[in-house]
């Protein structure tokens, strides 16, 4: 049994530390980028062309059309409201289910043990998993919005496009962190896709993507405030109407995402420790 020895070595001189720190940063980034890309290819079941196109591109676009026509019939809000709201929420399919699959599929395919045996820091390990979904979500939102503009004639001021890009990126990042937090439950519960299915539907209701938030009761609005996509949907609508970038909205979206990222890291650490203690890591 290895003995724990007192720490006596003062360590290398400051001049020697820089290359070591540099190597550690590069190594962490390699873990985030390469590890994330590999896990995305291996674990995200929808990376085949038919699944990607059918589920992630066509599905959200058809959902958007459904809500636009529903909105036109009920005359609750104009096309712009539904187009922007659904373009923002279209990222949720990839981000919520992706985050869930990033963890739950490791367990399902029996590779979770090998991943958790790794001595690497958990934060870059798990954030690397979320990174491809951020980009994926952004791509889907841009595709949905572009297709909707072409099909339904929505015009967005050119000056608003950079801001809109930033808003959609913040939305995807927040939603991916939310998905990762849900995925963490996959370390503890067997049917985690049940949770992600319900969560995905709840986002439709509470984020204001399809129901004007002022028509919802107070407690639903309060819940929506702490969900990803809510502030981004508002900011995107303001931008498309030519009102300029709502810095507070974007900041609120980023803060919500950061909260879920923190929650994901804590849950993953807690559930990892619990599953090691109970030896239930691979139990399905």
């Amino acid at each position, binding site marked *: 049994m290895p003995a724990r020895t007192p720490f006596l070595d003062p360590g290398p001189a400051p001049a020697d530390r820089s290359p070591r720190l540099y190597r550690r940063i590069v190594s962490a980034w390699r873990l985030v980028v390469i590890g994330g890309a590999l896990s995305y290819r291996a674990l995200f079941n929808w990376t085949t062309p038919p699944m990607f196109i059918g*589920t992630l591109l066509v599905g959200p676009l058809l959902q958007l059309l459904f809500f636009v026509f529903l909105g036109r019939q*009920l005359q609750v809000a104009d096309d712009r409201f539904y187009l922007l709201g659904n373009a923002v929420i279209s990222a949720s399919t990839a981000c919520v289910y992706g985050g869930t699959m990033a963890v739950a599929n490791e367990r399902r395919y029996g590779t979770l043990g090998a991943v958790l045996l790794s001595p690497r820091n958990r934060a870059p390990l798990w954030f690397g998993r979320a990174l491809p979904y951020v980009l994926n979500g952004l791509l889907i939102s841009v595709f949905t919005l572009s297709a909707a503009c072409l099909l339904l004639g929505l015009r967005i001021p050119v000056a608003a496009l950079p801001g809109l890009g930033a808003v959609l990126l913040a939305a995807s990042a927040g939603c991916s962190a939310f998905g990762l937090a849900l995925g963490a439950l996959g370390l503890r519960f067997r049917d985690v896709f049940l949770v992600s299915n*319900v969560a995905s539907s*709840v986002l439709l209701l509470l984020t204001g993507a399809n129901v004007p938030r002022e*028509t919802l009761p107070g407690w639903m609005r309060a819940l929506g405030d702490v969900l990803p996509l809510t502030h981004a949907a508002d900011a995107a609508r303001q931008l498309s109407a030519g009102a300029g970038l709502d810095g507070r909205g974007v900041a609120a979206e980023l803060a919500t995402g950061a909260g879920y990222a923190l929650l994901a890291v804590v849950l993953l650490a807690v559930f990892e420790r619990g599953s090691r203690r109970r030896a239930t890591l691979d139990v399905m």
Partner: protein
Amino acid sequence: MRVGRALRLTLVGVRTHVSYMSRSPLEITFAVLVPLVYATLSVYLFRAADDPDRLLTAAVGAGLMGIWSSVLFGSGGAVQNQRWLGTLETLVASPTPLSLVLLPITLATAVIGTYAMGATVIWGAVLFDVPLDFAHPVLFLLAVPVCVLSLGMMGLLLAATFVLLRNANALANPLDAPVWLLSGMLVPITVLPDWTRPLSWALPTTWGSRAVHAATSGSAGAGEVLAPMGVSLTLGALYALLAVLVLGRVEQRARAAATLSLA
């Protein structure tokens, strides 16, 4: 196979698969919780539109959407699940026609979907005080099973198509919203562009949901419920017939190419 035996096989099959699916948390979630979210969303939208008279229509529409989702994913999974379980070859090799093996599964998914209808209507009544004043309560209780039956038969055609596809979900995932839309489950098809009408008319779901909505509210007479019910059943039977033909051809090809179990 004699008609009596085929009927018995279908009934026993439906009972068995409904029992299986009722034990699956994922099926129940799809059949109950997700439609409840859509029902809530519909009720708030209809309220925001100052259209309180149609709240029951909104709840019933959300229930119909739930039935379709259940059929869609259940039919997609019908073949895929047998493939994953390694039982598809056994079922194909059995003397019972494959269509008669799959029909109870697709019907069972539609039956499970009726949980959605019950859940959304009760949810609306309990939480949103939606009055349950159906225009034709008896016809409503008749229209829903007819709608379920025709949807189950439509599901059989979907399942037949999915035998050919290795990844049936690629087709099933985006088919949710267009059928909700084209069938007028929540939005009347009159708001859609004219070119979509023939597509709507060709779907049993359109006639099924028309019958259910006519029985739910408005001043529709009994004929306006019964006629769409008849069309829905006829179209459903046509879809089932087409499915039998497609399945025979697909099965032959899969046997010849030895690709039946390739997932």
